[in-house]
């Protein structure tokens, strides 16, 4: 019996009624929560929507070793400026895996920022950058980016587990700034174990959402964004 062939053929001759009919119970949800404050620090708006959009880069970086080894392939990551690099994780000396903190040579892979923008694009999966990023600054149309706050662990509440990332932005531009898109930028560094083959992939967009309604941040006000990820809600 040819096991490999049978696995390859698993979808052959399936009756139509066994295919995806959308009757799933949610297992993993992501939310985008936006809290806007005025110049006195009072909350003037709370916006909450489902976040839908891991990008192709995220899925490529999440693939298991078995994908690469059983298909003898690599994954091409595209960064926010259009540059590319080859992701090839494996348990081998020549692998190109995500870097990990160590006492010798560090090439950091870290969350750069939650980035906000004033544009939008229709296919988040293929997005490699925000359509119109809002710059970090105090000029017209700009916001001051504070540092992103990372989760310390996965939190548990009954049968639910969750974590969230948050970041605040201050508006001292002199006018209202409107946000219509949000994304997560990850600095990706790939390396083998002895640092003889290290690749700086640059800043990679791993998550992207268009807001279901624009968020206006008043002058002297601020906005805090929460990206939340939960399982088994």
């Amino acid at each position, binding site marked *: 019996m040819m096991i490999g062939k049978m696995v390859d053929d698993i979808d052959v001759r399936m009756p139509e009624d066994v295919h995806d009919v959308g009757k799933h119970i949610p297992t993993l949800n992501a939310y985008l929560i936006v809290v806007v404050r005025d110049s006195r620090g009072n909350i003037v708006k709370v916006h909450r929507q489902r976040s839908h959009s891991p990008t192709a880069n995220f899925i490529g970086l999440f693939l298991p070793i078995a994908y690469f080894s059983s298909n003898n392939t690599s994954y091409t990551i595209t960064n926010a400026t259009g540059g590319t690099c080859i992701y090839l994780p494996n348990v081998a000396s020549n692998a190109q*895996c995500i870097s990990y903190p160590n006492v*010798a040579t560090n090439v950091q892979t870290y969350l750069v920022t939650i980035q906000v923008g004033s544009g939008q694009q229709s296919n988040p999966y293929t997005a490699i950058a925000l359509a119109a990023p809002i710059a970090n600054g105090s000029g017209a149309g700009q916001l001051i980016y504070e540092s992103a706050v990372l989760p*310390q662990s996965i939190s548990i509440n009954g049968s639910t587990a969750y974590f969230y990332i948050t970041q605040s932005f201050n508006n001292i531009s002199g006018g209202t700034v409107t946000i219509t898109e949000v994304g997560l930028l990850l600095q990706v560094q790939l390396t083998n174990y002895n640092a003889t083959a290290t690749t700086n992939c640059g800043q990679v967009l791993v998550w992207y959402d268009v807001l279901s309604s624009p968020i206006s941040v008043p002058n002297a006000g601020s906005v805090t964004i929460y990206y939340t990820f939960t399982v088994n809600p």
Partner: protein
Amino acid sequence: MVTPDLISEEDIAKLIISDDLPDEPMLKAYIEAKVYDKEGYVIQYHRQPMRSLTQYFLALMSIPIIGTYQGPSTNKAVGPLTNTLSLPTIVGAYGVGSANISWNFSILLGSGTQAFSPTLTSLAAPIANGTGAGQLSYGSVLATYSGTTIYIYVTVINYSSTTINVREIGLSATVYIQYNASGNNYASSTYSYLISYDTLSQPITLLPGAMATFKVALTFSG
């Protein structure tokens, strides 16, 4: 003014946990099993939603989102890796060496059942890999992806002389941290986690000589 002051951690948790918004979730997952008799004919087909991801799935998924380092100049691993996956904050690396992280998935099968908890670490009664009574011979795990869906497959054969009923299934992740050990020698530390757990809505029965393929599909909304 909508609310008086800063949102507390508890308020955020309530906003996160309440699943009260319409629209589709960002991940749909299902489990599929197909049983063949000795002659290769399909004798049982089963498909059901995969409902139950653990905290370890979230921690693993956080790597392509927040990375592994706490920041551009902080050479320490992020909290979900150290506090949830119990990975080292920092690993030793010899000379000019470095370190990296990678992972693999596998499918676990069991004959027991248990209540789900996001902190589960194992199946209730794992079916061992082998040819003895109550054991299944596991093939290599295969993985493919198409667009927003990742598929993981495994094939098992019942070489024993007894019937085996599969009642529970889990996805397991094996995490590897590789580094340059003393003397420029390669080293790898291995960690394993149960990242999903589901009981099957009906047992998958493998008579002696039968083969079954199990498939897990993870579809992100993209």
